[in-house]
């Protein structure tokens, strides 16, 4: 396994090199997120905007949902942009590209 070959550095093996530990980081992140979500139970926030029935900004779980969905859709949209925008690395260097190089 490639990971095993590279897992040693100066005879040292690193905690993150073990696949199970990466999963642990992921689960820890989920745990932290649950805690942050739970925080919405424990304090009252005044909504600054009336739009969306006051849910935006003031409602339960607005920021978590917005952060998650926003970032998720951002990546999926960007992925689709590649179909149109992506070119090979030497696109501008090839003949007919930039003359000044």
């Amino acid at each position, binding site marked *: 396994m490639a990971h095993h070959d590279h897992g040693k550095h100066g005879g040292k093996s690193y905690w993150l090199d073990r696949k199970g530990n990466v999963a642990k980081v992921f689960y820890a992140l989920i745990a932290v997120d649950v805690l942050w*979500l739970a925080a919405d139970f424990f304090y009252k926030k005044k909504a600054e905007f009336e739009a969306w029935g006051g849910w935006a900004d003031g409602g339960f779980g607005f920021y978590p949902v917005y952060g*998650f969905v926003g*970032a998720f859709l951002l990546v999926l*949209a960007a992925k689709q942009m590649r179909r149109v925008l992506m070119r090979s690395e030497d696109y501008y260097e090839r003949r007919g590209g930039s003359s000044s190089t």
Partner: protein
Amino acid sequence: MADFLLSPPLLLMLGSVVLAAAPRNVLPRTALRALLLALPVYSLWRFWGLDFGDYAQFELFGQTLTLVRIDPLSRIFVVIFHLAALIGSVYSFYVKDNFQPLVGVFYAGSALGVVLAGDLWTLFLFWEVAAVSSALLVWVRRSGRAAGAGLRYLGMQMVSGVLLLAGIVLLRHETGAAPGWAEFRNLTGFLEDGGLGFSNLAATLIFLAFGLKAAFPLLHSWLIDAYPESTPAGAVFLSAFTTKFAIYALARAFPGQSELIWIGALMTAFPIFFAVIENDLRRVLAYSMTNQLGFMVVGIGIGTELAINGAVAHAFADILFKGLLFMAMGAVLYRVGHVNGSDLGGLYKSMPITTGFCIIGAASISAFPLFSAFATKSLIMSAAVYKEYFWLWLVLLFASAGVFHHAGIKIPFFAFFHHDSGIRCKEAPRSMLVAMVLAAAASMGIGLLPLAEMWFGLANPFYELLPYQVHYEAYTTTHVITQSQLLFFSALAFATLMRTGLYPPELRSVNLDADWFYRRVGYRVWDGVATAFVALHRTGYAVAGRLATAALASAQRHLGPQGLLGRSWLTASMALWVAVLLAAYLLVFYWRLP
């Protein structure tokens, strides 16, 4: 005279020129470096002793120009530009050659000239000097790509300069006076309806000139194109000055321009999509820079005291954390030779200290509590809330989640973690580490000062430096919780996408951006025009050639040695022809005689 020579712009510019000109045997490298670092330190110390007001005024062509005008808006930029010059110089000592720090300090001096200029002519002068000196920092990479990118960069900077000059000349023509900043807004009178309206051509031209350097959408690609082609140190210097003095100029001349709100909102949103799929990690930083500039532009557009404070504070913080991120990526570039996300990974094993600094920079730009943007960007967000710009606020919130996604997670993750690329290199050189310590400490300081103010009642010198005295509490329960929720759930989205394999892999590629229009379409058009001209020239040449050949051949035929008119004749045949002629005369006379 001392007023002039020791003013921050001239002190840094002339100082670096003198140091550059000093022969090596008189001034050894270490001494030169010590003096070079002393320049911004002394300049800032001297500046700090001055009160608000005009200094170093001079008469030119019957106009009074002001080299140094200190007021609360220019002061904070002067402070951060000095710090940036200092940090950038320290960073660049990883190469033996002192060219980069010398040019960098000179460039910093020209940027100081822009923010201190008391009138538009002086501003224009330094605007152009900054353009040329910064182009040197792109070319210093000495690669073919850098040569091309530097040329395109300089071209775009010159466009900005020409727009500015045209605007100033028009303004001068309309008003008949050298426009100073205070007069500028009264003269053009475009603020009355709260919008530029683009009715005043002079103001519009100046607006575009500033906007080009502030990387407005579609005018932004010089930044994406050129900065990542520079050297590690060059990019650190470049990231600090040009875009930020453009922000200063917008804040000075166009506060409260409603157009800026939507221009800025667009700037915060669109680059993050590009940043997600960009492979060159320093180019990711360039996109993230456009995104951060967007927040500042929005702040200027909102125009309230809180919003302007936010824009300026965020510019200050951005110079530090964006510099820090460019320094960390520069260290990787220096040690590994490239910063392609597709080929990096696992570098935390080789460069643990750089990794740590990169994470501090990432946390700062992402506005995590305790880090700088949490105490600066939030001013802009709050200003948007107070003015009840709901959709704007949603866009900014999305952009905040997005900036964490690409700059906060992507940069450190793909460079230092992810899968182990097998690359083993040395930790960053000491000069780089020292510079990163300075930038990281300053970034955290900005983030921690409001907390110290809240808990211990300490004064917050950073907020006091802002142009307006506004009381703002960054660390409210609501702000800490909502911001953390936004960021941690954005992180969860990243982790989920990575684990499910939905995240687009880093690929060796370029993505088309606005520069495609002049690098490809513009080039094609130019190429077409040039080809047409060449064809026309060739056809004309061929036709002319053929005509000339024909004429030559005909001359040869008639006048040549064998030609009718050129060949030699026998004397006998001449005598015969003369006899024939005489006979003809005889006949004519015979018939003509009466």
